[in-house]
C-alpha cells in the first residue's frame, strides 16, 4: 500500500478522533496510553504488516500482538480504520451490552491476534507464534507492542532471554516509552535505566526512535533483522495529539468531558 506521510497523518488523526470519542462516551481510563501508540499502529497497519482485512485468518499473515492491552481503544480504532470491521462498533466500547471490552478480547472483532490486559504475556505468546512460523517455514513476522512500565514484569525478561537464545529473528518488539505508568513517572516508580544497555547485554539489537515520526517508525520496522532480534525503543508522548493531555499523567485515568472532547476534536481536524 503506497501511503505518503500526509496520508498517514490523516489516518492517525482519524484514529485519534475515534479514541477520544470512545473515551468520552465510555468514561474509560487509559486515554493517554492509547494516544501514545497511535502513530506506531498507523505505520504498522498501513505500511508494514502483511494483513488482509477481508481474510483476517489467512495463514501467512504477519502477527501483531498488543501486549499493553489497556491501550485497546487505539487498536480497535486502528482495525476499524483499516477495514477489519465497521467503525460503528467503536460506539460499543466499554458500555453495557457493548462489543469491545476495556482490555483486548480477541473474540470480540476480527483482526485481533491475542486477548491481553494482564501485562507481561504478549512477548511470550509472540515467541510461540515465531517458533511456529519457523517450524512451518513461513517467512511472516511477529510484532509485539509493549509498554515501558510493562518491562517491570519478570515474565518479560524470561522471554527477553529466550528469544535471542533461540535466535528468533522473525519477532520484533516495539516498546512504547511514554515514561509513565500506573503510579507515576516510570523513572520514579521503577528505574529501568539504562534500558538500552540491559537489552543489548541480553543479546538484542536496540534501535531508539521517535515514536511519532512515521519515517523513523517505518525504517525501524520494515528492515528485517539479520544478526540479532530487534527491539525498538519508541520515544513517545503520553496523550500525543491532544494538547492538554500531552505528557500529563492524569490522562492515564481520566476521560474527556463534553468541552474537552470538542477541543480535542478541533485539534485533531
Amino acid at each position: 500500500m503506497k501511503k505518503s506521510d500526509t496520508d498517514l497523518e490523516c489516518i492517525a488523526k482519524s484514529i485519534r478522533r475515534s479514541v477520544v470519542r470512545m473515551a468520552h462516551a465510555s468514561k474509560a481510563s487509559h486515554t493517554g496510553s492509547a494516544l501514545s501508540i497511535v502513530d506506531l499502529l498507523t505505520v504498522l497497519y498501513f505500511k508494514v504488516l502483511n494483513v488482509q482485512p477481508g481474510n483476517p485468518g489467512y495463514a501467512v499473515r504477519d502477527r501483531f500482538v498488543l501486549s499493553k492491552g489497556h491501550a485497546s481503544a487505539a487498536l480497535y480504532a486502528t482495525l476499524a480504520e483499516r477495514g477489519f470491521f465497521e467503525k460503528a462498533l467503536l460506539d460499543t466500547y466499554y458500555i453495557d451490552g457493548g462489543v469491545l471490552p476495556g482490555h483486548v478480547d480477541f473474540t470480540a472483532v476480527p483482526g485481533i491476534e491475542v486477548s491481553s490486559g494482564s501485562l507481561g504475556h504478549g512477548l511470550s505468546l509472540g515467541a510461540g507464534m515465531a517458533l511456529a512460523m519457523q517450524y512451518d517455514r513461513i517467512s511472516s513476522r511477529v510484532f509485539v507492542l509493549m509498554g515501558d512500565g510493562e518491562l517491570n514484569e519478570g515474565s518479560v525478561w524470561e522471554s527477553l532471554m529466550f528469544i535471542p537464545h533461540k535466535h528468533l529473528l522473525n519477532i520484533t518488539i516495539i516498546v512504547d516509552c511514554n515514561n509513565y505508568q500506573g503510579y507515576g513517572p516510570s523513572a520514579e516508580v521503577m528505574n529501568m535505566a539504562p534500558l538500552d544497555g540491559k537489552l543489548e547485554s541480553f543479546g538484542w539489537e536496540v534501535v531508539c526512535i521517535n515514536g511519532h515520526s512515521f519515517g523513523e517508525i517505518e525504517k525501524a520496522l520494515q528492515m528485517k533483522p539479520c544478526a540479532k532480534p530487534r527491539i525498538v525503543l519508541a520515544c513517545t508522548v503520553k496523550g500525543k495529539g491532544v494538547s492538554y493531555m500531552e505528557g500529563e499523567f492524569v490522562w492515564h485515568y481520566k476521560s474527556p468531558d463534553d468541552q474537552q472532547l470538542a477541543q480535542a476534536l478541533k485539534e485533531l481536524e
Partner: protein
Amino acid sequence: MRTTFINTLMRLAEEDTRVFLVIADLGFSVVEEFERTFPDRFINTGIAEANAVSIAAGLALSGKLPYVYGIAPFITMRAFEQVRVDCAYMKTNVRLVGVGGGLSYGPAGATHHAVEDIAIMRALPNMTVLAPGDPWEAEHLIAQSKEIQGPVYIRLGKNKEPVVSDTTANCRIGRANIYCDGTDLSILTAGNTFELGTQVVRTLSNGYGIKASLANIHTVKPFDAEYLYHRIKTGRPVVTIEEHNIIGGLGSAAAEVIAESGIRVTFKRFALPDEYSHYVGSQEYIRSRWRLDCASLAEEIASLVQRK
C-alpha cells in the same frame, strides 16, 4: 506414568506434526528421546515456567498442539495466571502435564507436593482436568487429549504405578472407570489413590465383610455426574479418597453433585487436611501420618457403613 506419558507422546508426535513438547528445564532422563527424534518440536525455555506456558499458548494460537511437561506445582501454580489468561481465557489447545501429583515427591518437601492443583485447575472455565490412576488410564487419556478443544491439565503420579484397571474395558475422557461393583457403599478415587482404593476394597471385603463399589474418576472435570447419580440412588454411603487438599478436589466435586441431587445419602471425603506437610518421608509415610493408608481408611469406612 512418566514413562507412559513420554511413550504415548512419542507415538502422538510421530502421527501428528502439530505435537510439540515444551519443558521448563525439567524432564532429565525422561524426554531425551523426544528431543533426539523431534529436535525442532522440542523447546526448553530454561527455568522459566511463565514463559513456557505462554510460548505454548503462542504455538497453539498458530495451530500447534503443545504439551507442557513439568512438576505439577510449578506448571500449575508458578505460571497460574499464564494458564488462566493464555490457556483458559483464550481457550488454546495447550496440554499441561504435571508429574508428581499429590504427595508423589514425598521426601522432597511441600514445595514439590501438588495438593491444590485440582482445585485451582477445576475453577478455570474451559479447562479439562484429568487425573489418571494407572498407566493404562494415562495412556488412553493422553492419547485422547489430542482431540479436546481447549486446554487440558493432566495430573500424573510419578513412576512405576501398577496397572489396576480392567484393560479390556473402554477408557473414555469424561466417564468414570469402574473397577468393581458392590452393594454396601460406593468409593470414588481420583488419580494416584486408585490403587489405594483397590486395596481398601479388598480389606473391606476380607476384613469386614463389606462389599464396596470402586470407580476412578480420572476426569475430574467435566465430572461424570451420571455415574454418581447412579450410585447415590442406591441409598448407600458414598466416600471419596484423594491425595489432595480436602478443599476443592474430587471430594468437593462429588459433594456439589450430591448436595444438588435432592437425595439424602451418607457422604464422607477422605483427603489431605487443609495444611502443608512438614513431615519428612515417603508418600506412603506421609499418607499414613494423615490416616490416608489402607488400614485406617478401611477402619473408618467400615464404622461409617456399620453406623448407617
